[in-house]
């Protein structure tokens, strides 16, 4: 099964709606609740990153028999140093993002914790792509 969702940069009202839809779908499919939680937490963190940093993005979700593959591709400033972004406590988030309860430099480390496989690629000035794979 394939699904696509659009994300608008700065739109904190709709941030989380795709994660919510994925959660409902995985529940319907009878996926283990722990795996659902890991998957939607990783996706939600990634979604918040796009809303917080990029101009816009696309999420594609591919649900196979034994795994879920989630790709988030955004157009935005990109990440200069991915290793730094993966470091707990490192953040470039704006005041607005912090006021929403994020931007503490915990997103990428938490995505790693909640993904079986996490791949991050970025071109500064162009955008970032994140792939999350979780096995059922």
């Amino acid at each position: 099964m394939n699904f696509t969702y659009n994300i608008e940069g700065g739109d904190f009202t709709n941030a989380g709606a795709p994660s919510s839809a994925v959660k409902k779908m995985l529940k319907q499919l009878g996926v283990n609740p722990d795996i659902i939680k890991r998957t939607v937490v990783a996706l939600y963190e990634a979604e918040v990153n796009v809303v917080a940093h990029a101009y816009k993005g696309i999420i594609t979700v591919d649900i196979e028999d034994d795994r879920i593959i989630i790709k988030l591709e955004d157009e935005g400033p990109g990440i200069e140093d991915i290793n730094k972004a993966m470091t707990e406590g490192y953040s470039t988030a704006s005041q607005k993002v912090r006021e929403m309860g994020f931007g503490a430099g915990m997103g990428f480390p938490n995505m790693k914790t909640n993904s079986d496989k996490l791949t991050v690629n970025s071109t500064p000035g162009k955008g970032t792509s994140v792939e999350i794979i979780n096995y059922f």
Partner: protein
Amino acid sequence: MKIHDIINLIGGTVVEGKQFLDKEITHVFASDLMSDVLTLNTDESLLLVTGLANLQTIRTCEMSDIKTVIFVRGKKTSAEMRELAAENEMILIETPYSMYRTSGLLFQAGVLSLY
């Protein structure tokens, strides 16, 4: 501790989820940092105490399987927050007490801390 009793203890007002007040709460986590809430390994017996009242508070709870939230210091929930909470069968409670007082009362009453 039953949510009924928690509401009496903290002088709370239920603004969403009145039909679920018989549920039992075993643990409390208090934070305004949703990034931190998203790292918790928890289930529906956890209650979140927070001063952060926005839509992402509810979204964070949805992803984290947290069903009960107390908003401290008179922070008001919006109609959109309540609507999203209702969709997820959540309980939202508002209290005039501070985060410290709310947490202190719950701790004193024997509700456990997560860490």
